[in-house]
């Protein structure tokens, strides 16, 4: 039994009555083993965020199902959905979703507070994490007082703080310079080594070369996948770049 099993997934956005609706995901099938580090790549608008939203129960599929450890996500009762998000899942949002009325520290602590963690434990866990992400000096500031990249690292810290089984990250390096990106990816690699499963959306071949497997998505379908196997990061990156060039149909 796979950790995550996605079968026949379809998502159609219908906004107004009468309009035909956007088919964001047409037909998606794949599975994820426990402890994998997967990258999802694809053009803008290809349905990556949609897929993550479905995986994280923030949205429900139009057709098809997602199984987590054999259990369908749609079967999780309303009450347990929040608990699932809180305890099993860490989500790094593309647009960060930080709360302006909390300082950065409280933003990071939010899931722990919701899980009723004792204060001492919370305080102990926030500093090392913030340090490793390079935001330890900013903890007392508010989101509107820091830069985009700093906000993104806070969003990552909030996703990691509960040590969730599954991490879903939507372009977690999108606002970061190359050094911070590398640093973040090293952290992902470390926690992945400790057994946490990661699914990361990215546009960067370098970022995806840190993962074990890359899924390519286009027009709402997974059309290609690459395994890293025993390759070095450089070689894997080379291969990913090749695939992107081939798939875009031009040999530039």
């Amino acid at each position, binding site marked *: 039994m796979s950790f995550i099993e996605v079968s026949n997934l379809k998502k159609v956005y219908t906004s107004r009555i009468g309009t035909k609706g956007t088919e964001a995901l047409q037909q998606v099938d794949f599975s994820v083993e426990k402890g994998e580090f997967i990258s999802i790549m694809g053009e803008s608008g290809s349905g990556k965020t949609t897929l993550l939203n479905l995986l994280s129960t923030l949205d429900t599929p139009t057709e098809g199902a997602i199984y987590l450890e054999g259990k369908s996500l749609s079967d999780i009762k*309303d*009450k347990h959905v*929040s608990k*699932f998000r809180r305890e099993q899942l860490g989500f790094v949002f593309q647009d960060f*979703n930080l709360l*302006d009325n909390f300082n950065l520290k409280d933003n990071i602590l*939010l899931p722990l*507070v919701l899980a009723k963690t004792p*204060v001492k434990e*919370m305080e102990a866990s926030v500093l090392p994490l913030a340090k490793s992400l390079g935001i330890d000096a900013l903890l007392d500031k508010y989101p509107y007082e820091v830069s985009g990249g700093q906000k993104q690292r806070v969003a990552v810290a909030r996703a990691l703080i509960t040590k969730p089984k599954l991490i879903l990250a939507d372009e977690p390096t999108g606002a970061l310079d190359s050094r911070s990106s590398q640093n973040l990816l090293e952290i992902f690699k470390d926690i992945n080594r400790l057994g946490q499963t990661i699914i990361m959306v990215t546009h960067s071949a370098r970022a995806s070369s840190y993962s074990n497997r890359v899924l390519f998505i286009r027009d709402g379908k997974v059309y290609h996948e690459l395994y890293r196997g025993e390759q070095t990061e450089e070689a894997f990156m080379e291969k990913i770049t090749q695939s992107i060039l081939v798939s875009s149909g031009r040999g530039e």
Partner: protein
Amino acid sequence: MGKLFSTKLAWRNIQSNKQVYLPYTLAATITVSMFQMMISLILNDFVQDRSSTLVQLFSMGAIVVGLFSLIFIFYTNSFLMKRRKKELGLYNILGLEKKHIRKVLLLENLMIGAISIALGIFLGNILGQLSFLFLNYLLQLPVVMTYSVSWLGAGVTAAVFMGIFLLTLIYNTAQVTFSNPITLLKGGKEGEKEPKSSPILFILGLISLISGYTISMTIDNPVQAILQFFLAVLLVIIGTYLIFTAGSIIVLKLLKKNKAFYYQPGPFISVSGMLYRMKQHAVGLANITILAVMVIIAISTTVTLFVGTEETLENRFPAENTNSLMTNYGLSGSEVEASIQEITEHIDELTVDFGLEVESMDSFRFVNLIGKFENDAFNTVSPEEREFIPDMVLLVPLDDYNRMERTSINLEDNEVLVYEAGIEVNSDRLGLGDNLFLVNELEDRPSVVGAEADLSDTLVVITPSAEAIDEITAAYNTEEDPYVMYWQGGMYWETTATEGDVMSYGKMMQAAIGDHGEEVGVFYESRSGNREEWYSLNGGFLFLGLFLGGLFTVGAALITYFKQVSEGFDDRERIQIMQKVGLDKETTKRATRSQIVWMFTLPIVTAALHTAFAYSILQKMLVLFSINNPQLLITVTIAVVASFAFIYWIIYRITSKVYLKIVE
């Protein structure tokens, strides 16, 4: 950019921002109509014809409502601006000069202002008339109350609100002028920084509140000290606003510092959420509190007045039939007694002729000394020197006292009985005229003392004889001091009249008793004859009280609704983000409920506290109407507080549902 273009742009802006402009215009319109109704009350015949005090009291009410309108419109405007700033900032960045933005703002404000003033005055007059119709129907008073519609009232309302809208315009323009496009663009986010706590404002608020309370507790006579009373009201209002705004932030920050408390799901969400927009939050709460106090006071005093009408009648007219006697100066006590005997016989004859009998007849004589009481002695004062309500010494002969009280007390020639109603005798000697008397204190209030004694400081003195009183008055009535003291008298009798003929008996007596020689003036009143008049007077007050109470309740409902809706939109995004991170609906409900409990209890408890401190003033005001029944006032007030709390609770339940619906 032409004028036409600006006008068009302004109009289009209003239309495309319907979501924010509609509630704003609605709120402004209702505020205008509330003020309009308040102004109409001042101009109402009932109020105008009664007394200048009543006009002053209502004008004071109008000033409070005006201040309140200013605060409320500013408050709603700030929500509006928060949403508009982003758009205006974008215009600015896209190349519209600030000059033009100001012009657009001016036009928008002009349009909204004109619409709300015109609609509000119209609506106010309609609603005023409708509610008068309804209350007339409900109360079925002997006299129908009419709502006054006048150009003067409309003019005052229009002028006041033009001023208010002008102030908001200046504020909005300043906001646009003095901020750069980026801060404008961030719009909503700005001002959402955590507010600073300011202990100084808090202390100022406390001082203001305590001084207000102190003044209201120490005012002797609210009519005399109407300015002082108004000052107390203002101080309490200012205190409430300052304490709510500064105090709530201090409390919330303290709560936040307490980590074990703060880092729990409920408090984490609600404390941070409240802190986040506490300034507006607190202003809203203070608004509701002030309105609640006004509702409670308006209704509880007038209900007490109405319910206590019988008591008023009992106090004013101890028996069904009353004669008040006035005599010329120079008549001695024994001559007055002789007159009373003659009149008594006359009454007996008249009653028998009418086919009834006199069942009981009480009478007593007295002299009322008006002047100043100092160092255990009474002295007259010339009218110019006299205070608004002077000291009074009521002299009653022992015989008359014994007759009225059914007692048989004896006094030595140099002894008096004394009852203290506001004036205290500190030693055991009392100086009256040229004499010093030995003082014996009475514990119980003699029945000869009317309710008026509660109004001014009074000392009741029972003298050994009527001759002693003749002597005392002679000493005061000297050549240099032309202020004369004369004998007065009261006669109280019951007859065998049934309910059916009590009115016609009264009419007969009124016509027949009118004249009694030159020396003694007789003024007859029957309790039944006065009943109708008192009920229509007190009914009129009840009418006004209910009207005002209803008006302010609507105001409170409006604010609560506006507050919930605007905060719902503010909180929506926050709550949704938290739900994405794993906040469940249960905790959301619980956290918002704890906010709601605060929101509910804080205004009600504060309003009850304010009312408690206003109690002494209310009590004294009611004495003016011969109601001296603390029990009744307290019972009614508690009942009114409870009913208002209930109504507010319903308002709260409904608006909270709206809030939760918006948030989820």
